[in-house]
């Protein structure tokens, strides 16, 4: 029912096209994340959906009702859109207690006293903040304020929930807990949600689908697994997780797999989303955790290279090795640090993704 459709959305500030033709659809009850580096237009997109900012072109509709339509000149002001927006700053009204903060939207909707009390109780219950109902916002911690901000938007049952980096003001530990809790809450309430973040791990953990944005456009829209495993271009491969990029030249290409020459001696087979002519300069992205340190006995297998360890970094759960193989340098993640500096590494064929050099940076 409450399906959000955004199509052809454009918003320019002077010469800067902050949002440059964005299309996406969020199904009823779905959790969609807009993910991208700072300044890519996420907040601008969200403000357009909320009605806080008027786009220059395109169309936004929720459940079949046009919020904005540049062709017909429709623009519904924010207060008539029935949506909930959680701000990065939480924006709790400092002169009102927690209860009064939640009461305000209900009063606007002329809901009776008894029903108001019931709904406030219910919402505060959802975020586990009932004991704090009579406190003023300044007497709450960041995490508590964030929960109240969420309760305030849930209390009037909006048709759409928008969240703009709601967890970015929390410390790392709390952020992780709030993430689990938020995901749980969203599926419980079942409200269609658009979530904005530049934190890729947050996006991966929370979303049904992720729209990766760059320079005002959506560059890939897919479920987290696909985004992580099959990034559609080098930018995404770099932005999501941390990838190694190995430069090389295509030697042969067949059936979706290419053989890439890395420097003089090394050869690597990897899948390519598109066929590439031999001689094309390419970059192969490989995630550090997918590279294995193997026994010298496997030294002659395909995609196995001799390598030299340049540096070892202990990171608690695992170790990172900085290694050199031929002319390529890359990072390898492993649980146990090899004693010898000279090792062999294996890059499984499915682990590498080949991008033409020009498409990267």
């Amino acid at each position, binding site marked *: 029912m409450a399906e959000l459709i955004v199509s052809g959305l454009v918003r320019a500030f002077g010469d800067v096209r902050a949002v440059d033709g964005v299309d996406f659809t969020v199904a009823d*009850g779905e959790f969609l994340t807009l993910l991208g580096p700072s300044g890519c237009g996420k907040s601008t997109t969200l403000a357009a959906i*909320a*009605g*806080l900012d008027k786009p220059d072109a395109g169309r936004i509709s929720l459940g079949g009702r046009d919020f904005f339509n540049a062709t017909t000149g429709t623009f519904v*002001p*924010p*207060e*008539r*859109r*029935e*949506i*909930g*927006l959680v*701000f*990065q*700053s*939480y*924006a709790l*009204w*400092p*002169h009102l207690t927690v209860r009064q903060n939640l009461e*305000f*939207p209900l009063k*606007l*909707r*002329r*809901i009776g006293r008894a029903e108001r009390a019931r709904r406030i109780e*219910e919402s505060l219950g*959802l975020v586990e903040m009932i004991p704090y109902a009579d406190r003023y916002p300044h007497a709450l911690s960041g995490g508590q304020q964030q929960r109240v901000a969420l309760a*305030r*938007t849930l209390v*009037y*049952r*909006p*048709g759409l929930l928008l969240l703009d980096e709601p967890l970015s003001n929390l410390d790392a530990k709390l952020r992780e807990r709030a993430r689990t809790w938020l995901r749980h809450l969203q599926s*419980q*309430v*079942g*409200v269609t949600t658009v979530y904005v973040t530049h934190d890729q791990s947050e996006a991966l953990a929370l979303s049904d689908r992720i729209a990766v944005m760059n320079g005002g456009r959506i560059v890939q829209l897919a479920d987290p697994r696909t985004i992580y495993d099959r990034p559609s271009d080098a930018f995404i491969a770099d932005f999501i997780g941390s990838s190694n990029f190995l430069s090389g030249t295509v030697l042969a290409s067949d059936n979706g797999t290419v053989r890439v020459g890395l420097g003089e001696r090394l050869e690597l087979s990897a899948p390519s989303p598109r066929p590439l002519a031999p001689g094309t300069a390419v970059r192969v992205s490989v995630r550090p955790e997918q590279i294995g340190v193997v026994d010298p006995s496997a030294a002659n297998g395909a995609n196995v290279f001799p390598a030299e360890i340049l540096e070892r970094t202990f990171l608690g759960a695992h170790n990172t090795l900085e290694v050199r193989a031929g002319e390529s340098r890359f990072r390898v993640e492993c649980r146990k640090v090899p004693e010898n500096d000279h090792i062999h590494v294996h890059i499984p064929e499915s682990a590498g993704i080949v991008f033409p050099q020009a498409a990267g940076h």
Partner: protein
Amino acid sequence: MAIDALPAPAPMRTPRVDRGTAIQVLVTLTTLALVLFPILPVLYQAVLDKPLYDPAATISLSNFARLFDTPRLGDIVSNTAYFAILTTIIAQVIGVVTAVLVGRTDLPGRAFFGEMLLWPLFLSHLVIAFGWFTMYGPSGYVTLFVRGLIGGDPWNLYTVTGMAIAAGAAQAPLAYLYCIVATRNADPNLEDAARTVGASPLRILTTVTLPLMRPAILFGVIMNFVIAIEMLSIPLVFGGPLQIEVFTTYLYHEVFGQATPDYGLVAAASVGMLVLVVGLMVLQGRLMRNNQRFVTVGGKAARPRRFALGRWRWAAFAVLLAYVGLTIVLVLGGLVLRSFTVILSPLMPLWDVLTLDNYTLLGAYPVYMRSIWNTIIIATVGAAIGTALIALVAVVANRSPFRWRRQLEHLAVLPRAIPGFIAGIGIFYAMGLFPPLGWLRNTIGLLMIAYIMRYLPTGYGAVAPALAQLGGDLDRSARTVGADWWRTSRSIVLPLLTPALFSCYALLFIHFLKEYVTAVFLYAPGSEVIGTTMLQFWKNGDNGAVSALASVQILITVVFVTAARKILGVKIYG
């Protein structure tokens, strides 16, 4: 809880007319009317050859020709220039020195001086003028006392220089105020940096501290210069006897000295003054625009270090004490003392002249009591109406999607360039131009309108910065939860602005209490205020009654300022 447990969103009322836009338009039109109300008639009258209520009047430039033919125009212009320049210099020198001493040194009794130095700001120039007259005038208490010691006239207050000294002392607090704010905001790191490279404290003062105060000093120079040009009271009280005329007293005498005032000439002269003041304000805007490089960044947490005065500590203390004593305590105290005596003179023992007659007189004549009540009502009610308007203007100009909001802000600060004197003349003309407004004529409502117009920029200056401090997400979140613009302003923005609105009210109250220049042309029997009545009785030589009225005004001010600060915790001037 599952989704189907949640009922559909409650339907919102759909307003038929957009009340937000309606309010925004209304506020803007009100402000426009308020600001144009006094200016347009002046401009119009200036180019009419007959009074503007005369149907036979035609457009001509003859008024300006007559203005330039005024026999004593040269004297008037040079007196005005000399008075304004000397006043500004005296005010600024005293203001800067006291601000540095109080704000930046280890002077003993800083808190006391900081408090005392601001007090003249709360009082009208008329009260201060009478105070100086009572103490330092030709037969003033101090003058007679010194004459008794040295056997000759020690000084003559009835000169342009004399006026400028009194006016300079009256305006020094303003210069002090701007500079003390600047010293508080100075970044101590800049001075510490100078110190680490080996500069002596005096060197730091002259090469770092004072240059950083330059914007404040510049701002004060232009403000004080404009105020000096607009000042009526001190030139009228001290220049009157010897007929030393400045621009304002010339206009005053043109209006009140003639049986039939020359409307056109007065309007032409007002336009001349308006052009000068607008020019100065534009200049100020220009000068202040490039001041980004003086803005000191960060370091707000640490207070600037104080310079050690060393052996000059007590000398500076004595000088400042003498200054405060002679120009504030003696002037105001003398005025109050005068109100309890038949005559105040060192030649007569005090106990022989003590009396309550002056106050009995106040109670006996309705005019006195009426002017006191009118003043209190205008200050109380007018400040409330003014604060309400200013709050709306600030919210529309800063927190609305209104198309003309920038223009509204310019409009709201425009009266800064309209001298109160000219506002009074303009509204006086307006009453002739729009006969339907005649019912306002003899009411204090007219004075309230004039005062609110005049102090719109003052109040706006107290509210707008507070509004800028308020995060925009607070109103945006109210919009998304379903409040329209007006509801957001009413329930979220304005309540959060309450402290600033209290300050605005207090400022307006004080200004309305002391204002009289605007009223000089507008009051009528029934709508007198303390200032106009004081002037009236001073002309008749009733100095006892004048000092009693002045004392009443001082008392109201002291009670109000103390109550506002102590009870309501309102910040007045920082």
